[in-house]
């Protein structure tokens, strides 16, 4: 019998710690598939963040470093400058990338570092219990915005792809999602493209992935997927934001 589906080689036989319906597990699986298909297992060096994505080193069977909160782009810079022929990928959440690590992300992008950031945007601080993130949309209720995010008090949701697009150092920025099969297929394609950009040394690449967080959104998994489609993707339009010739 022909085997049509199995665990990617780059995924360790470990159980994900992610909550039911969380997008991280889909993103992890997609990354592992792309590593296998592009034959990058012995070339990739992953940087794990602080947050829900922290434990990726328990799942990916590749070289991994755990970064301090928000410093992924800086440590990835250090690694990449020493090992320019490796593929250096920093996996980060919204708080990590766009709040505490804004300076590191912005300036790595501005320097045009040949690194790839996989930015999982679920609009909340997941691991710490669902506090407001820089990407929390207006009126969204979180544990630190109990009456919803009010812009006068808590600012506006940050569109990081668009922020970084104005920088000349960025070469590929695309926003995708993992809430439905077609979006998942598109996400995988975006990951491939980002890795290609890095290998061609065209500059900084980032894939922003809208990802459901049913636990902290207080929804069931289906409601969460629907919320990505109906609400979140209106604030964060899905699609290619910037691509220079690869």
């Amino acid at each position, binding site marked *: 019998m022909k085997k049509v589906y199995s665990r990617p080689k780059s995924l360790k036989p470990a159980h994900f710690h992610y909550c039911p319906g969380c997008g991280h597990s889909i993103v992890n699986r997609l990354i592992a598939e792309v590593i296998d298909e592009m034959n990058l297992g012995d070339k990739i060096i992953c940087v794990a963040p602080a947050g829900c994505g922290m434990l990726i080193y328990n799942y990916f069977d590749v070289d*991994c*470093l755990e970064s*301090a909160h928000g410093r992924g782009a800086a440590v*990835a810079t250090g*690694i990449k400058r*020493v090992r320019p022929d490796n593929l250096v990928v920093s996996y980060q959440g919204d708080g990590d990338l766009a709040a505490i690590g804004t300076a*590191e992300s912005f300036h790595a992008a501005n320097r045009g570092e040949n690194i790839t950031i996989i930015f999982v945007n679920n609009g909340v601080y997941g691991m710490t219990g669902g506090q407001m993130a820089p990407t929390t949309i207006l009126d969204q209720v979180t544990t630190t915005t109990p009456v919803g995010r009010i812009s006068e008090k808590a600012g506006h949701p940050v569109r990081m792809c668009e922020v970084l697009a104005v920088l000349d150092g960025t070469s590929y920025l695309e926003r995708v999602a993992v809430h439905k099969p077609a979006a998942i297929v598109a996400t995988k394609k975006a990951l491939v493209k980002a890795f290609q950009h890095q290998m061609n040394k065209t500059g900084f690449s980032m894939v922003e992935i809208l990802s459901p967080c049913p636990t902290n959104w207080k929804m069931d998994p289906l409601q969460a997927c629907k919320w990505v489609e109906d609400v979140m993707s209106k604030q964060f339009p899905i699609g290619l934001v910037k691509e220079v010739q690869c």
Partner: protein
Amino acid sequence: MKKLMSGNAAAGEAAVLAGCTCYFGYPITPQNELTEYMAKRVPEAGGVFIQSESEIAAINMVLGASVAGARAMTSSSGPGISLKQEGISYLAADELPAVILNMVRGGPGMGNISPAQSDYLQATRGGGHGDYRTIVLAPSSVQEIADLMPLAFDLAEKYRNPVVVLGDGMLGQMMEPVEFDHIKKSEPVAKDYILTGAKGRPSRMVRSLIFDVKEQEEHNWKLARKFQRIEQNEVRYETHLVDDAELVVIAYGTAARIAKGAIARLRQEGLKVGMIRPITLWPFPTKIIQETSKTIHDFFVFEMSAGQLVEDVKLSLEGKGRVHFYGRPGGVIPTPVELFRIISRHCYQIQRVKKS
């Protein structure tokens, strides 16, 4: 051949000669000459130089370069070193080598850009969060900066731990003749922990998150045992005219340099004063101070702060002997004459007490 160089530039040259291939830094006075020197020198030698967006980014770039296998360093001064503490804690937890140079200025807060020794406790107690120590080397001349830089890299790699070189604004900016001919790149150390892409070997992970408290405790004890080994093997100090001394000055870095001048005058006056100069501030030369205290009872701690080194001297003496203290905080550089007056006053007082 000797070259006339500032301490900052000499630190950079010695680092490159010792095999440092990565420098990451952010401007702050009084150490800018080092960043500027490295901007030219490191790329010339085929290495990586980045002027980072912040001190936090710089130390994390050091961490990335170190985990990728390179000899990496950063430098700053007080306020910037505070920002680097996050990364230094992670370097210690991850057991990654790195060299951090601090040309100390007067503080706290913004303070000023004058030389000071007010970061002693921050440097010798780890500085960041968690249970760890950094090796701290304290040069007292431009030549000694050059001599200690290669040692800093060697120790960092030997123990897989961050090493702090603690100078001050005076050491960084003054120019002295320096010899570099003896500095050789040490034999490369096998690094079985670095991340290179898992080619032909199992994948590796470098992390400091340990959820299991027992495992975390085990990791902390492992670090503690390493720090004990460092305490046993790496204490360095200089003694100066201690044998016949009736009073021993304890001072490091620029303060020790000033003290030497004062001691020369005191000796001319017939006052028997010597000095113990710690070269490693951590591990601290406790044993020599304890041994000295068997025959000499008076210790005079002199530092350019309101009293930090004096704590380690008191701890070392365990209540034995008398500890005299003179400190000038805030970026003031005391003169040898000033110190001569202060110490001679203490000497005469000691003699009066002895007579009565």
